[in-house]
């Protein structure tokens, strides 16, 4: 079955993030050796990754192969991908974590 199947799945951000971070842990040493500071788009299902100078560049490369998938973005060697110093409260951020998607 293709990774980009037509079945509707429940998508959970925390599960997806956990699988993605586990995948990243397995390739972290390799990536940090070569791509520290760059951005990566990860696909934990296919265990593939794409690298770019910006998240958008990594996304563009990933979309060439999987145009409808969701990816996990991170900055190689950084604990968090983005800092937003003008936002303090989590309540400002979109709270809905579970939703259905098709891909």
């Amino acid at each position, binding site marked *: 079955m293709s990774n980009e199947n037509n079945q509707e799945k429940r998508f959970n*951000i*925390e599960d*997806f*993030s956990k699988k*993605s971070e586990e995948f990243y842990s397995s390739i972290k040493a390799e990536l940090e050796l070569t791509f520290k500071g760059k951005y990566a*788009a990860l696909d934990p299902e296919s265990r593939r990754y794409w690298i770019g*100078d*910006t*998240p*958008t560049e990594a*996304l*563009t490369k990933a*979309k060439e192969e999987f145009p409808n998938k*969701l*990816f*996990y*973005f*991170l900055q190689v060697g950084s*604990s*968090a*991908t*983005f*800092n*937003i*110093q*003008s*936002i*303090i*409260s*989590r*309540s*400002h*951020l*979109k*709270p809905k*974590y579970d939703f259905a*998607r098709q891909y």
Partner: protein
Amino acid sequence: MILHGSIDDKNQLWVPIEVAGDTEHREISALLDTGFTGELVLPLHIAVPLGLKLVGISSCTLANGLETKQMLFSASINWGTQKRLVTAIVVADIEEVLMGVSLLHGYTLLVDYQQKQLVIKEPGTDDPQIAGSAGSTEQKS
């Protein structure tokens, strides 16, 4: 091309850009936020009508140190001579669009608080002088 933004009474920096999704486009003033390391943060009320496409998840560290997972959306922007894709974080309860420093990669940013002028030089543009009126763009020959 030399781009001109503006500086408001609170000394905040504003940059005019056009943001587009699958269904709409909109001209907006973005608050230039050097404390934001990404490309764009959009308020929910602006993002929804644009029809942005969800592209993934990322982690963000907020000002209080809290780390949170955020959904990333794909948008296109027109800024100066550049039309480019960006990844945007959508936030529920803010009013301003935030432009982060990732969008400034390769650009030169000049801020003159004495004359209240903000000038941004696109990559490949020579002679980044502070000149011209705020909130507009001009083609440099």
